[in-house]
């Protein structure tokens, strides 16, 4: 993936949600909060259907789109596959590529290939990008000749420092473990401090 596009993934993954229209932001937020998984939220979006209702429209077989198919097409677009050559080139020729531009361009390009509408596939594209951003937050191992180094995100580094500090306080580890093992009914109802 080109540097210009990689930079778009150096954000908090939730920022991708703001590229969606308001009604889809609300719906996707609901799905992410309830499933705790971007992939599961995408599957629920793709498989939504009102319960116990027989639809009175369309003589066509209901279309089922898999998350795997969407992911494959996104990967092909981002890697500059021949199939998406023109759209990919056009996107990169823009002076500034924003997250919203990327979501719109990818959705518009892959929708006809999958056999759907850009407006329908856009939340799934966003959820895939959210997953990619989260993965980008993972530590990166930099291989050296004599030893390796690890590159961490700032938030992960702060978290490690905090943990090390807490564990350096004498008795803190035992106190936390003891607290975690205490049944809720044995916990104090009033604090004496």
């Amino acid at each position, binding site marked *: 993936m080109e540097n210009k596009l990689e930079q778009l993934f150096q954000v908090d993954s939730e920022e991708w949600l703001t590229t969606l229209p308001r*009604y889809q932001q609300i719906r996707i937020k609901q799905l992410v909060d309830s499933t705790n998984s971007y992939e599961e939220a995408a599957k629920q979006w793709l498989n*939504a259907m*009102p319960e*116990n209702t*027989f639809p009175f*429209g*369309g003589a066509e077989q209901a279309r089922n789109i898999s998350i795997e198919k969407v992911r494959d097409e996104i990967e092909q677009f981002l890697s500059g596959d021949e199939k998406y050559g023109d759209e990919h080139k056009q996107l990169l020729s823009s002076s500034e590529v924003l997250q919203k531009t990327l979501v719109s361009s990818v959705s518009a390009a892959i929708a006809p290939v999958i056999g759907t509408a*850009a*407006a*329908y596939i856009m939340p799934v594209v966003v959820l895939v990008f959210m997953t990619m951003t989260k993965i980008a937050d993972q530590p990166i191992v930099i291989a050296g000749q004599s030893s390796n180094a690890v590159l961490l995100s700032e938030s992960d580094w702060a978290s490690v420092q905090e943990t090390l500090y807490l564990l350096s306080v004498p008795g803190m580890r035992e106190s936390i473990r003891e607290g975690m093992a205490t049944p809720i009914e044995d916990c104090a109802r009033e604090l004496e401090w």
Partner: protein
Amino acid sequence: MLYSSLANIVLAVGRTGANGVSLLGTATLLNSPGKFVTAAHVTNKDEQNLVVVVKPDNSIINDYQDTSNYQVEMIPVRIEAIDTFTDLCILSADIDAFSNISMGSTDILNFGSVVDIFGYPHAVHGRLVLTHQRTEIGARILIKNGIVKTKQVVLNTQARPGQSGSPIFCAYTTFMVAILIGSYAPGGGGGLLVAGVDPHTLHQTTHAVSVEYVREML
């Protein structure tokens, strides 16, 4: 709003192909240039070759509709907004026309409220007859779709394929309050078919979703 103008506002949705246009359901021109509302499943989430179908000689609702006249005009549309959780979809066409429809919600209905339905029953079999039905609200219900529950109403009348997307008007206020999406069927129906008809759908428990969700999509 007067129902007399509905022949130019309530249109059929179809998809063009090698053999002409296949009718899929009903759509309504909103009070916003070129915007129509229909049920999401009518489009099958696919906007390729999607059109709204106009019968030019049927601009007056009370005229006799010639069922042997297959001359139609088609307006290409794209899917502008779609939410399969509410089963609603906004279609957009490059036209300046808009309607004077006012939108309410199912909140203004009670059981027993009288409502008017306009749509194209049997459209999926090629019948293009704008048809009016008057009925009462049997119940206000919440229908689950995954983790989302949506406000719907039960219409005490039988509907047929082609009526999905039909607007439901409160007879008292003439506000559009709901969009017809289907009928009750345990498990979603579609199992046993007798002469192409699912017997589970032959009853008077028709479902329509509140149009309050349409406002959020515009």
